[in-house]
């Protein structure tokens, strides 16, 4: 295992220390329990947004705490959901009196821990709603599974619901727009290499020198299909077509598109992929109105990428364009 770390068990705490030292203008960090909160929290009268999940997906979620996006993020151990006490304390810290929205990625652990936290917060008199993101088309959605995983659309939900909250919308309204983003979003990812959980010390899965894995999640979970590595254009097709056909996105649709690196992929490759995605969408008569190309929701040092599309109407574009000031996403201010 080759990592720029000290002890595996100190990774999350030391990362939090780094974030606190690097961004004192944006965030404050609580160490007991762990959470990252907007420097000016709680914002009076504003709906508070709390997200969280296992660490190792940086900049998700801590990099998205700040004006126009999250009010707090709860980091768990690497790839492990945080615990209800973290979420409860974060919820209390951001409660400005207008209620708190929990943004939860659909993993059994995350869902159960956030459920417990919401129950506790409600017992303390804080109004809490939650949105569970489940955009991963690699996973079959059926009554007989835990449903689809929440992946890339989470970044969009945090940005857009964050803008809606900043505008002063009510908890019900912010929750509704967060649900709309999730409903209109789909993603799929792939890996060229595995990643190494620091405490495990070895790759989560093994891929041959000429193999890739299609349909991976963001935790080094094995995907749905292992196959021989293919040219970038074919890989983009393998991800984009199932996404497009799933919602489906249709001729005349406008979308916001993200080509996301899994952590170990050079930016040059992501632009090559974006180019092909743009052409595929154009072929379907779909227009990209905004885009993100870079590392936004990662899987440690995994090489690979994911694609996320969100159908965009005027409301969502306006909220997307609203100012945001976080460590990892910033514009308009």
């Amino acid at each position, binding site marked *: 295992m080759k990592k720029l770390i000290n002890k595996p068990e100190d990774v999350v705490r030391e990362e939090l220390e780094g974030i606190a030292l690097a961004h004192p203008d944006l965030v404050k960090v609580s160490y007991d329990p762990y959470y990252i909160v907007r420097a000016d929290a709680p914002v009076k009268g504003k709906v508070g947004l709390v997200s969280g999940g296992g660490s190792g997906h940086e900049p998700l979620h801590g990099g998205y705490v700040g004006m126009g996006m999250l009010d707090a993020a709860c980091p768990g*151990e690497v790839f492990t959901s945080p615990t209800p006490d973290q979420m409860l304390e974060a919820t209390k810290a951001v409660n400005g009196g207008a209620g708190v929205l929990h943004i939860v990625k659909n993993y059994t652990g995350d869902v159960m821990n956030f459920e417990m936290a919401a129950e506790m917060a409600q017992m303390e008199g804080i109004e809490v709603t939650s949105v569970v993101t489940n955009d991963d088309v690699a996973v079959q959605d059926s009554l007989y599974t835990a449903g689809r995983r929440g992946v890339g659309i989470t970044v969009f939900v945090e940005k857009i619901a964050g803008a809606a909250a900043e505008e002063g919308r009510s908890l019900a309204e912010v929750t509704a727009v967060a649900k709309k983003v999730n409903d209109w979003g789909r993603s799929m990812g792939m890996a060229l290499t595995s990643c190494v959980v620091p405490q495990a010390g070895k790759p989560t899965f093994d891929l041959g020198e000429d193999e890739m894995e299609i349909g991976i999640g963001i935790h080094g979970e*094995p995907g749905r299909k292992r196959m021989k590595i293919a040219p970038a254009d074919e890989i983009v097709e393998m991800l984009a077509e199932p996404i497009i056909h799933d919602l489906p996105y249709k001729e005349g649709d406008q979308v916001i598109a993200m080509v996301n690196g899994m952590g170990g992929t050079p930016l040059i490759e992501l632009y090559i992929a974006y180019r092909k995605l743009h052409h595929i969408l154009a072929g379907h008569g779909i227009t990209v109105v905004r885009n993100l190309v870079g590392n936004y929701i990662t899987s440690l040092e995994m090489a690979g990428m994911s694609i996320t599309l969100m159908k965009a109407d005027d409301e969502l574009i306006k909220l997307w364009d609203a100012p945001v000031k976080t460590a990892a996403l910033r514009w308009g201010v």
Partner: protein
Amino acid sequence: MISKKEILAWLHRYREVLAENKEYLTGLDAAIGDADHGINMDRGFGAVEKKLDGVADKDIGTILKTVGMTLVTTVGGAGGPLYGTFFLKAGMTLSGKNELTAEDMVAALNSAIEGVKMRGKATTGEKTMLDALVPALEAMQKSVADGGDIHAALVAATTAAEEGMKATIPMLATKGRASYLGERSIGHQDPGATSSYLMLKTAAETIGVS
């Protein structure tokens, strides 16, 4: 009767067993999950270990509730709420008790399992810890009904848990992270069922033995 000392011995020993099986459990989770189950359980029971001395003079119910709360706040993932709820519910059932009958034990395991089912919205056959726990409860109930003593009941439960654990191998996961794999989840043993089996095995080795 199960003494408080035995309960504490079981919890201390289970902490050791988890440390010994940390890599094994994590390896099972790597195959169909995210390679952290052993790490999570080890972290959680490491934290439990530090709490046990402070509550050693409290009743068994309080001890188990403390274990549950500690797991909830230190394990995370799916394991945290599930094992946390397991011990919280067992502790609530055993409130105020300083020693346990076989019937207490059955009642506690029963409500612990009900808690897991409720929290996880799951049932048997879904390739989870319930596939070890539920057969264990049934075997324990049967053993006690047949007049077996506490140790015999725990041994019967362990045997059933082991079979249940092995039975998860051919199962298709429909709950938890492994369900994302669809057909590819088949052929692997469930890590949570394995840690549950180890928990019962440790009980059989530490409770009602002498």
